[in-house]
């Protein structure tokens, strides 16, 4: 019988996986909560769509493409890969969604990552936005988040965001990279040969840098935003020089008047589905082998859940995962594997060049909000953490991470402060009580 592969996430990794699984002879169900395929990278406004041809795999006869389909739970069984529980609607958050259950011979998890932002005093003020949100707004709606904007944080994502802001007419006051020049250089140049396959990426960054230079936007390393202030909205930010461990150099503070601040401290993989499937993690990402197989038989992972390396690497991983999941001949795909390995090397260099400084929590004050949903402050958390209660009891007591975002924003921060696993979210996508109460018909194979 033909193998059935379910691919969750239709970003570069999931699209690669679906394509390769079909090529390997399998039947594929590809689903994404978004109503368009393409994932983060391609998430752009309607007018930008015209430039893009539809993804071919979504029209393949062997691939059932389900847009607006969110996976809300993975059900582990005694044998075989987990069953995939889906709410599927005209749109993934709208009315009239239906529940379905998919049974597969193999699963490919490709749910991507989301922006990570470290807290600092005032980060909850309106006008402080993630770089990802600013980017989507700029590229999508052609709207700048503000007139006078500062871009700060760490990672190569700072540059494209600043460039897009310039393109939509914002006055970008500067780009502040918290990493010191030394750390950046060490990370980027330790093994230059590993970058050959990623030359495109290097050129991309160079082009962004040139764009900033043309716009006379200063790029400074070893400097970060340590506070945002304002009355009901960000009006000014305090920047400071940071040491290698991100502690503040006293006396280096400067105040800048802004009307928006974009921050990014890298990306956090969306681990709820891998964790629900029982996959082992390694250094905060899903652990995978040469074939992208996770520790759970029949479950593969690809893309940013296994490391942050950009879209081409995510696609290469997806292709390897899909090929293996689809029953393709083992060991094939030499060139793709090489691209994948180069991507992984690039990812570890990125991580090395842009580490989160150990002492960042030094920016926090007792009244700094850590969990925005529940308004739990740093002082409360620190006291509770010192109480020798179990981390779970601390979270229940302080409510940190228990609000509507379910620690998707503050989870990594809580994990550092409390030593908890922030990714345990058996309900991976909100499901309405009414939907939950209507069980789907018997699990169906495929569609």
């Amino acid at each position: 019988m033909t193998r059935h592969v379910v691919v969750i996430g239709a970003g570069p990794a999931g699209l690669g996986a679906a394509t390769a699984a079909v090529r390997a002879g399998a039947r594929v169900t590809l689903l994404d909560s978004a109503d368009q395929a393409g994932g983060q990278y391609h998430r752009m406004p309607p007018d930008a769509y015209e430039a893009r041809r539809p993804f071919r795999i979504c029209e393949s006869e062997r691939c059932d493409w389900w847009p607006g389909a969110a996976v809300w739970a993975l059900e582990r069984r005694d044998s075989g890969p987990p069953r995939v529980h889906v709410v599927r609607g005209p749109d993934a958050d709208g009315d009239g969604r239906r529940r379905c259950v998919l049974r597969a011979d193999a699963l490919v998890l490709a749910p991507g990552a989301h922006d990570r932002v470290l807290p600092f005093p005032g980060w909850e003020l309106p006008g402080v936005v993630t770089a990802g949100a600013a980017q989507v707004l700029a590229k999508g709606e052609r709207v700048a988040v503000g007139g006078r904007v500062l871009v700060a944080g760490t990672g190569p994502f700072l540059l494209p965001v600043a460039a897009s802001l310039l393109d939509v007419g914002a006055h970008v006051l500067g780009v502040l990279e918290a990493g010191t020049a030394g750390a950046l250089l060490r990370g980027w140049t330790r093994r230059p040969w590993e970058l050959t396959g990623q030359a495109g990426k290097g050129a991309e960054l160079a082009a962004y840098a040139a764009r900033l230079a043309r716009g006379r936007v200063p790029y400074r390393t070893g400097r970060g935003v340590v506070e945002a202030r304002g009355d009901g909205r960000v009006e000014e930010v305090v920047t400071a020089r940071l040491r290698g461990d991100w502690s503040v150099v006293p006396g280096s503070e400067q105040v800048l008047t802004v009307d928006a601040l974009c921050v990014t401290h890298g990306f956090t993989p969306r681990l709820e589905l891998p964790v629900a499937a029982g996959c082992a993690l390694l250094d905060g990402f899903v652990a995978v082998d040469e074939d992208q197989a996770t520790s759970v038989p029949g479950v593969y992972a690809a893309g940013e859940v296994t490391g942050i390396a950009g879209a081409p690497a995510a696609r290469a991983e997806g292709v390897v995962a899909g090929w293996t999941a689809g029953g393709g001949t083992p060991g094939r795909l030499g060139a793709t594997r090489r691209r994948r390995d180069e991507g992984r090397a690039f990812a570890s260099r990125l991580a090395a060049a842009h580490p989160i400084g150990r002492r960042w929590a030094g920016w926090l004050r007792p009244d700094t909000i850590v969990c925005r949903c529940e308004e739990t402050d740093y002082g409360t958390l620190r006291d509770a953490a010192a109480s020798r209660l179990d981390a779970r009891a601390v979270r229940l007591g302080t409510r940190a991470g228990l609000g509507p975002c379910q620690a998707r924003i503050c989870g990594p921060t809580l994990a550092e402060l409390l030593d908890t696993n922030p990714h345990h979210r058996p309900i991976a996508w909100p499901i309405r009580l009414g939907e939950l109460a209507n069980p789907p018909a018997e699990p169906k194979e495929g569609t």
Partner: protein
Amino acid sequence: MIGAGIIGTACARELALAGVRVTLVDRAGAAGATTAHGEGNVLVSDKGPGPELRLAQFSRRLWPEVAGDGTEWQAKGGIVVATTGEGARELTAFAAAQRAAGVRAEPLDPAGLASAEPYLTRDVTAAVHYPDDAQVQPAGAAQALLDAALGEGATLLPGCEVLGAEVSGGRLRAVRTTGGTLTADLFVDAAGPWAGALSRSLGAPIDVRPRRGEILVTTPLPPTVFHKVYDADYVGAVGGDAAELQASAVVESTPAGTVLLGSSRRAAGFDERLQPEILSVIAERALRLFPCLSGVPVMRAYGGFRPYVADHLPIIGPDPRLDGLWHATGHEGAGIGLAPGTARLLTDLITGRTPEVDAAPFRVDRPAVLRRGAA
């Protein structure tokens, strides 16, 4: 004291207050196990006349005096509703028997019910108000109890797992732990659902088994549910047989605005895997009571393992087979509510005071506790 859940912390506090020097050990941190994976209902409504009800009534009297800051103590009262003719007859008879046993159980007419719970279904055949039902935030309550115990001179050793016993002359002299050997005059097993395993490792097995329960949490809502509201089947589920899945609706709101929907009961060992069809049953039951919640998103599900004894009574007292070993466990789905009463009873027995409730029904020497092949 082996185990720092709600039972271990409550007992440590009460013993320390009585002048006993207490060391509390837990293989993890305090209050992170069952106590942080359930709800905090402090109920008299779900118990029929008998020893558990007497312990619950006693415990309910003690709760306000032990509840301090951070426990989120709310004496909000409970409402039990029946939705069928048969259910109405059972509920009415049950409430009458409870009243005879001293429980405040006030029948509500439809108008009274509608003003008490405006969003509740109108398809109700009988409703009873229990003003004495209350709730706490269990992990916060355990922390308050722990802080009080530490304040009275008790010590806590987190990250310390008890592995075995050192017995001589028929007496438990010491326990071997991951942190070395600990000697004491008395050892109390407060290991919750792991009491079966712990007691086996100490050479005096008791039959306590895990009984899995799951709870759903909605996103925060404006006030919609004002009491703790249960369907009358709750009563049946509490007493029922362990093996098959049971679910009855328990709906309550928390101070954070979320609504908790509980809960299921089933024997599944220590298997934590999520089972969507069980969540479906919980949701379906809850919606029968509050159809208006149908469009509300569930943002979280969690569950834990109730420490279950086949005769549905906790185990509180000395082990007849091993001097120096005591048990305070097996509270199934009522350990939060029963914690202060259990602690007082245990302390009275240990210090030789006359207990206020009869301890005999909770003794270790019962068929359900000592039956052969104890799990």
